[in-house]
């Protein structure tokens, strides 16, 4: 019943075509066919005038066609064939969408309604490519999947994707984006999770691993930001809305960057808003495309756990970043590790799981998160005051000797955790030291490089 089109197109197509604009109970607009106008019928059975992908896009745009049915249909016949059969109403024996009465007459009208030339123009103007089950460029990892997405829309860097007629873009998923690792987790993440996700994204991308994620806020976004900052491999974003509707709007910058430097994928046609049920479906694509799935932070029940379930059912390695046993957002990941998921301490662990040899891993020179932070602090303070930083002989790892500190410095240092500790907590833990003195000590420790300051919090480095 619903045909997704962008706002302007829909209004123009409404005029004189017998469509009434209506509102669903959930507020989304849909168009209902009331009167058939044969003049708009453009497809011809015998001579195929469009590329197969345009037919695939048109099929994905008709909502009363179920995904699994479409996947089955496309596995055995070409999109244009399915299209013409639908136009002729030949699929009377099929259940098109489970739980919905087959109204073949209406479906036929809907199919005949679609202006393929306009659809093609829209795809071209949004620079969106289309691939489908059975197409030569359909991602190999999705072929034969238990819930294969019948049609995939993609938007990618201009050099890679030539929009319009020739949409062979997704071939790069198999050729250039290998290996692929998804970094997923909760939107409501902690500071720790966000930093870990960023670091993993950065390091993996530096090692040439493509990072897949869902562009959500929190962990997903942080991982992609890291990958984009490293900019060594193609980042892949799998989204739950049409590729012309940015969701969530806070991820606009990542969305645009990924569509410039990597690939955005969506199962949904242009103009499809993100619906609640799109997200678990989106997660299965993330899982199916990945070689390894990394959960950075997740509650026991969360969207990330959908992806984990989808991965385990596909025999894809799940890894998890451990967290504090007190942190509610690390409960899910800690449970995963308890249940046998591999633990991620830094990107090296992921590379091992991906099957990199020791030699290859040495070449990548992944720096542990702690050393990186220490290095940054050292760089920052090097210009300023003299400090106690010394490089250990024979290693490029930084280390500081806490024995050089005075008693009070040690007490303040011990009040600070390796995770962000609020200043108020430090003040209360050192309640016997004068408040001005504590700030003086904190400043000393920071310039010595033992601790790092945030905005209202401190992190211990050594």
């Amino acid at each position: 019943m619903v045909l997704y089109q962008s706002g302007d197109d829909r209004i123009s197509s409404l005029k004189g075509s017998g469509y009434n604009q209506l509102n669903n109970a959930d507020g989304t607009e849909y168009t209902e066919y009331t009167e058939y106008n044969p003049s708009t019928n453009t497809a011809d059975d015998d001579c195929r005038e469009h590329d197969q992908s345009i037919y695939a896009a048109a099929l994905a745009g008709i909502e009363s066609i179920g995904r699994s049915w479409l996947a089955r249909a496309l596995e055995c016949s070409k999109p244009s064939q399915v299209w013409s059969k639908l136009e002729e109403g030949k699929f009377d024996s099929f259940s098109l969408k489970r739980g919905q009465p087959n109204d073949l007459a209406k479906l036929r009208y809907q199919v005949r309604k679609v202006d393929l030339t306009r659809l093609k123009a829209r795809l071209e103007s949004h620079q969106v490519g289309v691939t489908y089950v059975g197409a030569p460029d359909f991602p190999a990892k999705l072929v034969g999947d238990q819930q294969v997405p019948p049609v995939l829309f993609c938007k990618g860097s201009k050099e890679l994707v030539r929009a319009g007629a020739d949409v062979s873009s997704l071939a790069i998923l198999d050729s250039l984006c290998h290996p692929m690792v998804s970094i997923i987790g909760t939107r409501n993440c902690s500071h720790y999770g966000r930093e870990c996700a960023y670091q993993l994204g950065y390091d993996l991308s530096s090692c040439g691993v493509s990072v897949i994620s869902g562009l959500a806020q929190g962990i997903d976004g942080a991982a992609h930001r890291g990958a984009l900052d490293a900019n060594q491999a193609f980042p892949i974003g799998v989204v739950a809305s049409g590729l012309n509707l940015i969701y969530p709007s806070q991820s606009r910058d990542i969305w645009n960057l990924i569509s410039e430097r990597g690939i955005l994928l969506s199962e949904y046609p242009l103009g499809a808003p993100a619906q609640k049920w799109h997200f678990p479906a989106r997660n299965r694509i993330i899982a199916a495309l990945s070689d390894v799935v990394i959960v950075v932070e997740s509650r026991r029940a969360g969207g990330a756990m959908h992806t984990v379930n989808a991965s385990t059912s596909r025999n894809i390695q799940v890894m998890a970043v451990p967290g504090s046993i007190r942190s509610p957002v690390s409960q899910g990941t800690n449970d995963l590790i308890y249940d046998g998921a591999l633990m991620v301490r830094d990107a090296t662990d992921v590379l091992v799981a991906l099957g990199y040899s020791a030699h290859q891993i040495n070449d990548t020179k992944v720096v542990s998160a702690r050393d990186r932070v220490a290095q940054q602090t050292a760089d920052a303070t090097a210009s300023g005051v003299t400090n106690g930083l010394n490089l250990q002989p024979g290693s490029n790892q930084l280390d500081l000797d806490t024995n050089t500190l005075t008693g009070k410095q040690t007490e303040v240092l011990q009040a600070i955790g390796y995770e962000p500790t609020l200043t108020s907590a430090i003040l209360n833990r050192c309640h016997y030291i004068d408040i001005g003195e504590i700030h003086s000590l904190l400043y000393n420790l920071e310039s010595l490089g033992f601790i790092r300051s945030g905005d209202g919090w401190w992190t211990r480095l050594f």
Partner: protein
Amino acid sequence: MISRVATASLNGVDGVSVTVEVHVSNGLPGFTIVGLPDAACRESRDRVRAALLSSSFSWSTKRITVNLAPSGTRKNGAGLDLPIAIGFLVATGELSETQIEDVGFIGELGLDGTIRPVPGTLSLIDAIQNPAVVVAARSVFEASILGNKQIHSALDLAELVAALKGLRPFGQYNHFRPSTQAKKYQVDEGIEASMDLDISEVRGQRLGKRALEVCAAGGHNVLLVGPPGAGKTMLARRLVSILPKLSSKQALEVTRIRSAAGLELDHSFYDQIPPFRSPHHRASLVALIGGGSSTMRPGEISLAHHGVLFLDELGEFQVSALESLRQPLEEGLIRISRCRTTVTFPARFQLVAAMNPCPCGEGFLPGSCRCTPQQINRYTRRLSGPLLDRFDLRVPINPPTPEELMVEGKRPNSEEIKIRIESARKRQQDRAGKLNSDLTTNELSKHAELTEQAKALLARRLASGTLSARGLVRIKKVALTISDLEGGTRCLDAHHVSEALELRVGLAMLSPQMMVA
């Protein structure tokens, strides 16, 4: 017959001299008041008539015209009842003009002739030129504060007329004095914070207490952010206990405003306690900044003049009400313009605000917060950047841990802190003649010299993006106050700056996605 009586009417917190002219002549019997009276003034017609009759004076069946000169400005309030009645008595020959020659009159009349006090007596007395003024018995103390006028009083109209005629002396009504006892609970008037509260009652919360100390010393505005039950309100209420006493000049200004707002004088006048106002978060714009259609009444920000305006649940206030605070915060006064008049109210207050980090209130801990990022965004977006920027101190307040609550030991009490604050304030007055929060950028760079380390620290924070250019000036002001509290070297050292940075956290801290280790 015509008579003239001197009185005054209130315009904002200032009095305006008014002459009541009463004309009694032959003609169609009637009683009209001209000269832009407001509703309360117009009604005085009936009160005056009843009061005169109850006091056994005869009512004239002639044509009575009352003019309130200058007739171009709007007069308000019932304070003109008494002058109108006296004018009538003079015009009808009951009193002679010489008997009221040097006397001004202020007072509302009851139907039985009782003379009642009116709001703003202090300002009204000031506006009357005559050397003697008659006020209601309850207003005698307030009217005598200035001490530049002879104050007479009487309980009712009959007694007053007798005294004016010289048949009996004026009564002494000095026994109507405000209580010198601190009332513990005066919730209705907002003066809840009194000297009874002491900062030593707060356990833990070292950062919060320190923030109060710094903001009291430098006159900085402070924003406390924390989950419910963390102790934000408890802390804020105790700010007054560490603020230095008002000077007598300041106390007088505060009393004038309170009087104009119709609030009774209380012990805070003797104690010279800075006012503490905490309006509810549903307070309207006019209640907050002052105004009104006919009578311009001072708002909460003026009542908090020379004191503290505490806005609890800042995020729940109407956006328009909050944004209206920006001008008074900068200028120390509020100008309210209506089509007929413009009134300027003093409003040099210290703003203390408390809010939750997110709508559910349980921010800071990602597990306990039930808000979506969008909800939090909507919640914090209510506060505009310019408003948040005016808070020199922005402090996260976390609920005290059980260990902190159980820790016994000496906590500094308000008196000890107040001594430090007073010496820090003296240092500021000696140096620049004003508090650090009022320093201009030029004055700041003149008085606040940074050491090399402090410069390096600020440069590092600017580079890392945790400090903005706008924040830099505020940080320097706060650091200067911290150094004043410490005893004040000329140079701002790195640890002063470091502490100032801790007391002014970025807006990212307001979002709850913060893990506390």
